[in-house]
């Protein structure tokens, strides 16, 4: 529109003003705020995010289909590979689903071992979160190395017990595959001591720091009702004010014997999610200590366990409280040695649905913060 007039410059500026386009920022499958291969396309108007479209599936390996072609012992292995930072929790859910359908009784010692290892795994998972969250916010790597130093102590215990550092495959329907070493209790107690110091170290570095608070407070707020509607669970739900923990709500295994608190946030922002996870670590330490005291001697597998497990026909939806939320295994069996349908309800998959709701209206830099506070593991999202 070329208008001739005295005030040419103003005409041009007015025209430009009407023609702003929102640009698409592609936070691509490989990006340094690394939580795995995840792609989100942000539509940005100036500095503010207007739309978020997450694209997942880069790590889809067909675990559910593969489980249908594997028998029950083999299908356990896929559980390690879904959430590869909380492996024991995933294995726990799976073997409990099998036990519920088959009616297998788990000996006491095995239950305690399972609970202790699951809670230690919760600690390593939350350490990883602390490190990754700090890195997302821009610390060069200091929080990351602190967190990994602590995590390494726990990893050593896992390696001593199972022989593996990441894909454990230690639980079996009915118990665990072999007994823990003789110095198990001393080792775990020593690790708990170090963890207490480690949590305090990280908290001193991160929690009160004004820059962290400024970057994560009131960022990515989601209310309690919205959280339930989107199917959020775990620390995300608790940070929004809903006091729900599956270990209390629908107690499984022997969690009803332990005395622990549930951290609940008020504001539902990223900072609250971080605080909830830090507090959860302390509560996990409490559970571990109580379990260590109560742990009896005894067998770790029931005596009469068939070599090839055949489940009666039926179905079960078993759910456990993973570090990231509610992890569910929906197992349909038609008799036989292989699952007919094994659906994995993964916590991060459901938590990611609320990403758009939390991110719209914030700045571009906040999108990374919010993604970090959701704490996704792509193996679990994509299976």
């Amino acid at each position, binding site marked *: 529109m070329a208008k001739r007039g005295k005030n040419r410059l103003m005409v041009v500026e007015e025209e430009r003003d009407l023609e702003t386009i929102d640009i698409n920022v592609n936070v691509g499958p490989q990006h340094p705020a690394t939580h795995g291969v995840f792609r989100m396309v942000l539509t940005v108007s100036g500095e503010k995010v207007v739309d978020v479209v997450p694209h997942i599936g880069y790590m889809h390996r067909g675990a559910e289909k593969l489980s249908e072609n594997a028998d029950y012992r083999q299908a356990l292995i896929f559980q390690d590979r879904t959430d590869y930072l909380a492996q024991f929790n995933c294995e726990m859910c799976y073997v409990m689903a099998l036990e519920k359908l088959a009616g297998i009784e788990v000996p006491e010692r095995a239950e305690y071992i399972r609970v202790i290892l699951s809670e230690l795994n919760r600690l390593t998972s939350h350490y990883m979160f602390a490190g990754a969250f700090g890195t997302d916010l821009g610390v060069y790597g200091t929080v990351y190395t602190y967190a990994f130093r602590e995590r390494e102590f726990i990893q050593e215990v896992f390696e001593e017990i199972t022989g593996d550092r990441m894909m454990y495959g230690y639980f079996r329907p009915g118990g665990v595959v072999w007994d823990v070493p003789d110095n198990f209790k001393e080792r775990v107690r020593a690790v708990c001591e170090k963890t207490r110091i480690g949590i305090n170290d990280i908290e001193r570095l991160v929690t009160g720091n004004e820059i962290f608070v400024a970057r994560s407070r009131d960022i990515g707020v989601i209310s309690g009702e919205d959280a339930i509607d*989107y199917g959020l669970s775990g620390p995300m739900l608790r940070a929004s004010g809903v006091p729900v923990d599956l270990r209390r709500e629908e107690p499984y295994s022997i969690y009803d014997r332990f005395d622990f608190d549930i951290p609940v946030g008020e504001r539902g922002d990223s900072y609250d999610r971080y605080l909830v996870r830090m507090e959860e670590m302390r509560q996990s330490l409490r559970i571990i200590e109580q379990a260590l005291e109560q742990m009896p001697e005894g067998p770790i597998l029931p005596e009469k366990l068939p070599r090839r497990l055949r489940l009666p026909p*039926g179905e079960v939806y078993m759910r456990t409280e993973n570090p990231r939320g509610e992890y569910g295994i929906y197992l349909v069996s038609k008799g036989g040695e292989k699952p007919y349908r094994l659906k994995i309800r993964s916590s991060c998959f459901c938590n990611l649905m609320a990403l758009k709701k939390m991110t719209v209206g914030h700045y571009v830099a906040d999108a990374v913060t919010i993604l970090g506070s959701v704490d996704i593991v792509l193996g679990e999202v994509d299976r």
Partner: protein
Amino acid sequence: MSDIDEEKEDKLAGSAPTNGDVFKMLQEDHEAPVSPGTVADTFKEVLPDVTFASAQGALDVILMIAREDVPRVLRAAKDDPRLDFKYLRCLSGVDHMERGLEIVYQLYSYTHKHSVTLKVRLPQEDPHIASVTSIWRGADWHEREAAEMFGIVFEGHPNLVPLLLPDDMTDHHPLRKDNPLAQIEEWQGVRLGEDVVNVGHIPAGYEELAAKSAGDGEEGKE
């Protein structure tokens, strides 16, 4: 009514399931009856004109309903204060081959602390069902995944495009039972064994390579 009885005996999945069928469908898989006083009774109280077939599963009560009742029942499940299932835990698809496709909803209520499993059976040739994203926003991706894995069409879903699978893979549904687990990577064009009929999804640009390695078009239909 006699026509419907005959149909029931012959093939269950051939027609849209009628009310009587839900009982039979559920009885095929589950035998344990539901004890009184559970959430099944609350459902019957809230919706007296809907037929529920109920059974006791390993952890939850299982209710099977007909396809037409899905929007009403699920809406009531969320909104009615006696049920108050505000949390949709999981939405899965199951392929029961000739007996149809099944959608399973796992619901939980934080206020009443009860849970329920709701199932719907769909005929294989006509897998349409109403979407529940308008009821629970958290059903969004679950339905997308069920759609791409089983070929179920959710009517009313805002964005039913593939989620985990490639964007152009709309013709091929991996989790169906007639889709076998291939021994080797299909779409790289490597020739499959003779017993594998379904070659599966071939991405754009690779058709020539796949046809060439499938060998003269005798084995493996594209």
